[in-house]
């Protein structure tokens, strides 16, 4: 019961974020794509993404009510690209970025804790020396 309650709350939060995204698209889409339109490259008409569904030649692009959409071949799961060493570089790139960021944050955290410990030790030493009677 508790889990369901939490799931409902989490779903509500996620829904609010999605609604905010939709509102952004509705009211202020230009803030995100306004200056970027020119940088989009127009893909060639015959270009296709591996595994993507393609409309029949001569048909209009559209949904179920529009032109019929067919798959030109069995769905390509892209498994072949996973085995290609060239594409492995992409994964390596992601892992390197993650590792660098993790290392940076850990180093900052460790140095911050060390600095705090040192400061605390210094304060303790100072308070002890203040307590000591003068010779």
């Amino acid at each position, binding site marked *: 019961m508790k889990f369901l309650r939490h799931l409902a709350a989490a779903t509500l*939060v996620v829904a609010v974020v999605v609604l905010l995204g939709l509102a952004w698209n509705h009211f202020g889409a230009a803030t995100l794509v306004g200056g970027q339109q020119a940088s989009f490259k127009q893909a060639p008409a015959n270009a296709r993404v591996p595994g993507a569904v393609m409309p029949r030649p001569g048909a209009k692009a559209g949904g179920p009510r529009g032109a019929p959409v067919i798959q030109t071949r069995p769905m390509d799961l892209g*498994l072949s*690209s996973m085995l290609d060493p060239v594409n492995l570089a*992409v994964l390596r790139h992601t892992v390197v970025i993650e590792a660098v960021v*993790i290392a940076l*944050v850990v180093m900052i955290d460790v140095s911050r804790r060390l600095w705090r410990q040192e400061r605390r030790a210094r304060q303790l030493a100072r308070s002890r020396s203040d307590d000591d009677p003068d010779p």
Partner: protein
Amino acid sequence: MNGPPVTSAADAVCGLARRRRVAARTRLDFWFDLVLLLGYTLAYSYGFTGIAIHEWLGIGLGLALLLHLTLHWDWVLRTTRRLLNPRGPDKVIWIVNLALLFAMTLCVASGILISRVALPYLGIYPLAGPFWSRLHVVTAEVTLGLVPVHLALRWRWLVRVGRRLLTWHRAGPDR
């Protein structure tokens, strides 16, 4: 009448069971987080996975993230309440997590809206547009920065649990 508390065998069993339950929850959190990280790393590496795996993995990650948020909802409530405390220790983590929630949710949502394989395969034809494409790219880049920060801010917990799990596996779960 006010004698020392009597610890019965049933209480001991109950305590042990509770300890085991907590350990099970910790194990679940650890492995689930690890799977999420691996899934995210793969999903981000679009050029490595190909579009179909990228999209299905993204949808799966969306559901997994909802579960992750649900499992940690207690933490969300507790930390949000403590935000007013000026010396609250989890403030940075809370802000990073909130940013990650926004970025990840918008990334998955925009990814669904520009889906070219997964949703059309299910007979759903989402509305694509430059806004959603751009939002997907931007939020993906933001999450790539925030996911490792989110992880690294809990590195002590990860190391501690990882070490415990390693020794637990070496010693055997029944011991």
